């Protein structure tokens, strides 16, 4: 049986610069990645590694020029039917930018549900309440606008909006990066609950290795458009195989301060 969503040898190049500086950037270079039902797969990499490009390719926001993206074995291109779009939803990094400040939370949720013609009008109210409960927000916020809400509450609304159309795959692109530690933990736990309750497949994209470690079942490390290592989480963190993964892990600061800083500065690049 094929995995729920998979990227098979996906490549994408961008041309950049003009004249003498013109060159081609391989944003994605034959990337393979799978996420199955009820599974959370982490994709970690530094800025410019291609992780967001992959998110956009999988969600159909970005064309790709090699390989295949498949959902339930069915080929997905950048042109997708409404039904295909419904099945994969995206949660963005910045809940201050991704919610419309003029719309109440109810309007935000209702818009999605209506566009996808999922629920009859008289059920809309009940569906909104259901969604708020799912993301552990008080129903009283339904008639509020984002302005008065905290970052954590906004990100829960963004997740509720993504869930409003009953997707099977959730792509979370740095979805907790902008949140304070005390609320970040709550959103991470929420994603974990949703995977259990709804059997969601979650592709969790992040630069923060500690966050990925605390949430994901498997982790893919991406470097310059290539997946350099793909392993179960515990294994990857205890025994990284690839040089780049090792370098990445050794650079992460630790709470117990076990790694003492040598005082000779490393050269910059």
């Amino acid at each position, binding site marked *: 049986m094929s995995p729920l969503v998979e990227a098979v040898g996906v490549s994408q190049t961008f041309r950049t610069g003009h004249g003498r500086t013109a060159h081609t950037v391989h944003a994605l270079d034959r990337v393979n990645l799978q996420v199955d039902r009820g599974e959370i797969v982490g994709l970690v990499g530094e800025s410019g590694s291609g992780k967001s490009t992959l998110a956009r390719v999988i969600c159909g926001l970005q064309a790709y020029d090699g390989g295949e993206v498949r959902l339930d074995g069915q080929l997905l291109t950048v042109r997708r039917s409404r039904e295909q779009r419904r099945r994969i939803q995206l949660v963005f990094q910045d809940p201050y930018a991704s919610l419309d400040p003029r719309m109440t939370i109810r309007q935000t949720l209702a818009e999605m549900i209506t566009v996808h013609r999922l629920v009859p009008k008289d059920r809309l109210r009940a569906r909104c309440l259901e969604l708020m409960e799912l993301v552990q927000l008080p129903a009283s916020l339904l008639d509020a606008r984002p302005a008065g809400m905290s970052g954590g509450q906004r990100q829960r609304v963004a997740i509720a909006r993504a869930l409003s159309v009953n997707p099977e795959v959730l792509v979370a692109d740095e979805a907790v990066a902008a949140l304070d530690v005390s609320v970040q933990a709550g959103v991470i736990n929420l994603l974990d609950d949703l995977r259990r309750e709804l059997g969601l497949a979650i592709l969790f994209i992040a630069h923060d290795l500690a966050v990925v470690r605390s949430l994901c079942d498997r982790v893919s490390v991406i470097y310059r458009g290539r997946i350099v290592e793909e392993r179960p989480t515990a294994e990857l963190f205890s025994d990284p195989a690839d040089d780049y993964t090792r370098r990445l*892990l050794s*650079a992460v600061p630790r709470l117990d301060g076990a790694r003492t800083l040598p005082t000779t500065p*490393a050269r910059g690049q």
Partner: protein
Amino acid sequence: MTGAVAHDPGSLLEVIDLRIAVDLGDREVAAVDGVSFTLAPGEARGLVGESGSGKSLTLRAIMGLLPGNVRVTGGQILFRGRDLLADGGQLQQQVRGRGITMIFQEPAVALNPVMRVGEQISDGLVQHRGLGRREARAQAVRLMDLVGIPDPERRINAYPHELSGGLRQRVMIAAGVACEPDLILCDEPTTALDVTVQDQILRLFAHLRDELGAGLLYVTHDLAVVAQLCDSVTVLYSGQVMEEGDDLRSVFARPFHPYTDALIGATPRIDGPITRLQAIPGTAPALQDRPSGCPFHDRCPRATEECAEGRIPFAELDRGRRSACLHPLLPAGLVR
């Protein structure tokens, strides 16, 4: 008690009962509400807190860079024993860039985009030390080498946009330490950087501290970054000091304040067993909605009714360990 920090003639920086108010248009609210701490020469102290804790405003008040709608309403900031707030900012003006320097979060924003980086690095030397062009240039090369910028002779003529984020941050640090300051204020200088670059910059700070003997006040939300770099730590929440320790390892290993404890429990770990994170219920209060008593009491598992009343005393609970809590997590043998 608040403000009861004894004046210590040997300290480099003493912040005593600092109060900062933000003008919301119709009223003023206290964003920093009686913050005190000291920094010895050569000490590195982490000022840790989440957004709205007042950590950045405290730092900006020391540098005299508060935004227009924000003002200091009380307290003292003693730099080598002299109050920076006393003479209408004259002393502050004198020490800014020379005695005290500040490294910002976004080098892309803090650097001048139309000025070559060499000039930006040596600007302070020209302004404060009266160096000529040739000397300033030679110093800029030396400083770029000090902060680990490869090929400084060539890079000195670069514009900020021609450099990577990590190199830009090194340029800002070079400019910051050009006049050999006694105190370096850091406002989340690695938050915008990749983890491998962050690691290099943290090593650089450790190196500079050894090399220059400068005191370091490091503001961040990241406990692990502070653990790597600092000696001591002050934990802020909603404009007040919750906990403080002269030895940060002891604080992180055995926090006294339930907020510090909760923050550590909510922080994802890179090692140790993989467990579900402990989320802190509720959200940090907005400035205008700060509850009475301990600002953390309505999210705190140990809170009782008395936590909602009055100012919680800031008390020394163990040697070098102070906390503002009525029900601290004290190990056996220590009583409040």
